[in-house]
């Protein structure tokens, strides 16, 4: 373990910084500098360089190639499918998250912790398995495959499969933001509103929602980011049919495997911008939701 060496200012005489107390309450200047250098080298190699290389590769063959890669029909179809998927998945999982958080935090019932664990389950399952279970259910050789085939419905290797797989992978996001938040807020405000004569929906809209709006937005933001970027689960159910079942992350893969590196990185750069925007909004929401979070103690 990289434990800093003792810097015994107490015995060693004058501290390195005149403002520091003579007690060893922080590491020596040299140790601090070393740790900062180690941390920044690690982050540059594993975070910054992978980020920069996306844009460098995307613009390697000039702006025209970049724009052409983003406006070709296959890319536009991928962008459209990704947007449609997110537009369907995010509201559904947001409603699920709200319902689950309401049931779990406003009432007492047995096996509640088990339910919370089950809601978190998609996070612990490999995305590949998340996609595969729907192939087992709806694929041609799957449980409902023959029945679906006879009725002319295709789910796997079609858009519905992509949507269901994305629903699976992003299911926990909103619920897991709202449950701890609503647990902390308790039920007094809702009870007061109801006793004063407000209806159930009115209480939800005018008492609960204003209290949880930042947490809800936070969950929706993370859910949206993952819904747009999901690769493993979607890859298994999609079939990679260009123009039909290719989402943006899959399109990146197809282009890369065809050695169309500049185009692959052009589409990847759009996804990277989405990721950076998500991070920026997330930081803003964290600051907005609890400006003094680290100081406030109940």
């Amino acid at each position: 373990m990289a434990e800093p060496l003792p810097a015994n200012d107490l015995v060693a005489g004058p501290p390195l910084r005149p403002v520091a107390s003579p007690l060893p309450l922080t590491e020596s200047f040299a140790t601090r500098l070393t740790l900062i250098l180690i941390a920044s080298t690690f982050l540059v190699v594993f975070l910054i360089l992978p980020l920069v290389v996306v844009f460098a590769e995307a613009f390697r063959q000039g702006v025209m190639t970049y724009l052409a890669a983003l406006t070709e029909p296959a890319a536009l179809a991928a962008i459209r499918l990704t947007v449609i998927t997110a537009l369907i998945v995010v509201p559904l999982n947001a409603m699920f998250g709200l319902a689950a958080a309401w049931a779990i935090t406003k009432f007492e019932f047995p096996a509640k912790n088990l339910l919370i664990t089950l809601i978190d389950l998609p996070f612990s399952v490999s995305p590949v398995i998340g996609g595969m279970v729907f192939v087992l259910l709806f694929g041609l050789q799957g449980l409902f495959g023959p029945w679906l085939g006879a009725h002319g419905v295709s789910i796997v290797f079609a858009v519905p499969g992509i949507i269901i797989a994305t629903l699976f992978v992003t299911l926990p996001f909103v619920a897991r933001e709202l449950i701890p938040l609503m647990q902390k807020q308790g039920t007094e405000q809702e009870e007061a509103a109801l006793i004063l004569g407000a209806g159930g929906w009115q209480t939800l809209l005018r008492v609960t929602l204003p209290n949880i709006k930042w947490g809800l937005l936070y969950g929706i933001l993370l859910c949206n980011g993952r819904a747009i970027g999901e690769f493993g689960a979607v890859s298994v159910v999609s079939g990679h049919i260009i123009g039909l079942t290719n989402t943006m992350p899959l399109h990146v893969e197809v282009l890369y495997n065809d050695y169309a590196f500049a185009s692959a990185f052009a589409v990847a750069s759009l996804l990277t911008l989405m990721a950076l925007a998500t991070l920026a909004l997330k930081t803003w929401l964290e600051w907005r939701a609890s400006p003094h979070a680290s100081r406030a103690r109940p």
Partner: protein
Amino acid sequence: MVAVHSLRRRSVIPGFGLTLGITLSYLGLIVIIPLCVLFLEASDAGLAKFWTEVTAPRTLAAFRVSFGTAAFAAFINAVFGLIVAWVLVRYDFPGRRLVDSLIDLPFALPTSVAGISLASLYAVNGWLGGPLTAAGIKVAFTPLGILVALVFVGLPFVVRTIEPVLLDFDRELEESAAMLGASRGSILLRVVFPPILPALMTGFTLAFARAIGEYGSVIFIAGNVPRYSEIVPLLIVIKLEQFDYAGATVVASLMLMVSFVLLLAINLLQAWTRRRQGG
């Protein structure tokens, strides 16, 4: 309005039946039933088939590669994540806030983007691959490449589990230890480190669990040579593509059981962390 059927305790708050109904049916349809079907299909395969699949050299090798690289990556993340979290919480330097918000990049970046970006970074003519190849180290298309990708995806877990514990840490404890004559090194080792340990182990397990299931960021850099640099999730995908559903379900159900054990471990570790923080 929906009638309140109180399952346990009476409450003035409405919507218990409605919200619990939505929760259970949605969760059942999208997560529980599909996962049960996986186990059902795996048990359909029979014990003999299960055993031949699991002990096939290619499967065993994939599990070895997946577990080995995931554990090593989680260890690297534990060491460097601890340093990064410490630097971000305790020291002040220009750009600290920016770096702190960038830590979550691996969560936000689609895995296929991370995959092609790392593959081009470590390619023979890449920014890092070039100098490394000159030094005789081959990263792309080797298990080392898998390791690099798994370090990337696991990076936020350790940092994000340790940061709140460090922020909450009562610095008066450090002051008391210093007053009593402890050196900085012994304060770090005996006062600061023990309360961080549960969080560090939680972060390690989270990074490990994520790394085992990771697919997108690995497949581009791994080279995917069977019995050398092929990970378990890829093996499942290959079996599915060859319509070997029985083989795929057997391998997947084994993976799933590993995930459940890890989930249990994470829950226990988190309970331990909370107890440490609370007490």
